[in-house]
């Protein structure tokens, strides 16, 4: 009687365990494979940038052997359909080929708009105190999560210790990864810029002046609406980029730092004004980023406020241009300010730093001019002094001009404020403002209090 029961339980247990073992074993054979061969000196020298190794002298053991053996966990968003993923994979493979003792466990996951599993993955890793050795994660306000965890190192000492490496890191870019008390919590990597795209063909077709001033914009709206052209391809489900540009156009570079100040109200009111005039698509409340990009690319919309990442998809069209949004009436913005910055950077975990120099060497490799050139050949702007990739379309030329005309550069403020506060104002705040259900001042007051919490 009891025997029967025991037998059954035993069977169940064996079953469960064998499944466990099965998966356990299979796992082991994967990760073990990379650690076989020894590093040979000549191959090391072949990949130049990290060889100076002065940071290593400062605090790591003398044996150089150990520096090039080990397994490191790296998380980035260069995976799947991400545009940098193929290059990143090549770059890692090259590194592993040059350093046979090093195994890089790549746990990258693409970051995406709605259900962002990349963030969730890192959040849970940090909450469980098992951070990756090296990760490419957001900076600015979002650095709070890794910073609060105290699991990551200050990279400043490493940069000071190896001037040959850090000389290539652009000072202007590095600021984006520095906290108020001077801690270099991450090394910013690939940069972005945002602005207003417009389709010159449509302006020419209806004999309209290009949208280089706010009057021109106001003047073109009615004509476009009459001709069934959407003036602004904007989604009110994700109006962030447009709101950023309008705020900058209204309050300028300095005013943009007075987060959620009432001086922002006219910019938000401009959204309502445009909405009332029918300047947005009819279903702007439920459109996604993908939808508006198709709408604009198809020539069904005249203007779109978006970022550098859309350039690649639009540059083949000769009629596309990019400028900074002109100042609103009485506003302080305009072409002298450009919205650009570095949204993410490399973080190194304390555990990895204390263990050995393998992670640091790999970080130096990733941030070397050689690798950087390969990465930005795909897209984005560089935080590291390196050769620019060649061949430019009219759109790229205009974007370059936009950046060259500007004397002040400011990062997007969504990365500088508490996320909840920013989202309260934009998603869905703008919808409430546009339909007149809540005033801009009320929304700003709500976001202010969320930002100060």
């Amino acid at each position, binding site marked *: 009687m009891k025997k029967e029961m025991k037998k059954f339980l035993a069977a169940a247990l064996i079953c469960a365990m064998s499944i466990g073992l099965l998966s356990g074993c299979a796992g082991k054979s994967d990760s073990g494979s990379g650690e076989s061969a020894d590093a040979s000196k000549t191959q090391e020298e072949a990949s130049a940038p990290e060889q100076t190794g002065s940071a290593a002298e400062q605090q790591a053991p003398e044996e150089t052997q150990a520096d090039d053996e080990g397994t490191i966990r790296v998380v980035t968003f260069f995976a799947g359909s991400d545009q940098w993923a193929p290059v990143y994979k090549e770059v890692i493979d090259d590194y592993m080929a040059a350093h046979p003792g090093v195994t890089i466990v790549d746990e990258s996951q693409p970051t995406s708009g*709605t259900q962002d599993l990349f963030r969730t993955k890192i959040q849970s890793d940090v*909450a469980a105190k098992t951070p990756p050795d090296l990760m490419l994660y957001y900076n600015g306000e979002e650095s709070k999560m890794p910073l609060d*965890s105290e699991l990551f190192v200050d990279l400043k000492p490493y940069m000071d210790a190896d001037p040959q490496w850090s000389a290539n890191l652009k000072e202007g870019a590095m600021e984006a990864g520095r906290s108020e008390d001077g801690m270099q919590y991450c090394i910013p990597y690939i940069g972005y810029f945002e602005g207003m795209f417009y389709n010159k063909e449509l302006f020419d077709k209806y004999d309209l002046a290009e949208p280089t001033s706010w009057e021109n914009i106001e003047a073109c709206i009615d004509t476009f609406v009459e001709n069934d052209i959407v003036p602004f391809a904007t989604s009110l489900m994700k109006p962030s980029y447009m709101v950023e540009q309008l705020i900058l156009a209204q309050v300028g570079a300095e005013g943009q730092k007075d987060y959620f100040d009432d001086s922002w109200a006219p910019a938000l009111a401009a959204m309502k004004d445009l909405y009332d005039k029918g300047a947005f*698509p009819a*279903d702007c409340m*439920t459109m996604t980023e993908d939808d508006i990009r198709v709408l604009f690319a198809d020539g069904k919309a005249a203007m779109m406020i978006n970022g550098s990442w859309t350039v690649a998809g639009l540059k083949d069209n000769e009629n596309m241009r990019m400028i900074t949004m002109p100042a609103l009436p009485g506003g302080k913005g305009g072409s002298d300010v450009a919205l650009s910055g570095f949204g993410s950077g490399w973080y190194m975990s304390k555990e990895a730093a204390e263990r050995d120099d393998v992670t640091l060497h790999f970080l130096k490799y990733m941030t070397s001019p050689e690798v950087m050139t390969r990465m930005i050949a795909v897209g984005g702007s560089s935080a590291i002094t390196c050769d620019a990739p060649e061949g430019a379309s009219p759109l790229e030329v205009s974007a370059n001009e936009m950046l060259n005309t500007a004397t002040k550069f400011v990062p997007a403020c969504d990365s500088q404020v508490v996320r*909840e506060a920013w989202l309260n104002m934009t998603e869905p705040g703008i919808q*409430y403002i546009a339909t007149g259900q809540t005033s801009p001042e009320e929304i700003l007051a709500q976001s202010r209090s969320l930002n100060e919490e």
Partner: protein
Amino acid sequence: MKSKKYFYLFLAPAGVFILTFLIYPLFRTIYYSFTSWKNFSPKQSFAGLSNYNRLIHDPVILVSFRNTFIMMAGVFLFQVGVSLLLAILVSKTKKMFKFLRTVYFIPILISATAIGLMFRLIYGYEYGLLNLIFQWFGGEKQVWINEKTSIFLVTIPIMWQYVGFYFVIFLTGMSKIPGEISESAKLDGISSFQEAIYITIPMIRDVIVSVVILVISGCFKVFDMVYVITGGGPMNSSELLSTYMYSAAFRNYNGGYASAIAIVMVAFGVLLSAITRRILEPKETY
């Protein structure tokens, strides 16, 4: 059959799993709901009832409750109704039995995200299917999803996707009705309709109770579909407790507030299923 020892022995493995991976996190969530927990930081600070206070004054919570009820009503009437009807009809069919069972199940195999995307493209303005059909008949393009319609439009795919699921469950339940009962009913001259009402449905009463419980919990957990089709908008009009909680946690990084929403969600769901059980279940079972 009563045996305390075996009762707990048989429950033990399930108990270990559920305690570790569901009950313990649930208690953590209760704890978090009384803290101010931002950015997934390892430190939380005690915040008393402030999350619940915010919740009471948050108009979106009310909208979410209203939407959850609308969805539940739709699901009860349509999903359970249609699946029960289909199950009764199919159980009386010898031909095509396998074919129908397979086909009805297909929507469940396809992820909610994909079905959500399909419906988003159906409702779309510029290139949407509904507008295409409308223009075909000489009509004007419409904006289908607005503040008033959003919750109904997201309920349609939700109702539709899981009909096959409850269909299979009902069919499984009907399998244990002895064939002789139906035979003798036939001999007594009872029509198929009468048989369904007086024999089949009472015989699978326990299955219906289980289904009702699953429907309630299902409605609280619906998430992907709404997130893909409307993102909870326009103006939070199609927000559900689940989508709102997800936004609070993983978009706004406010773990404390998200936990409070989760607790309200679970508490309310338990209350609702307790009431249904009380109503639907015959007293003598326990």
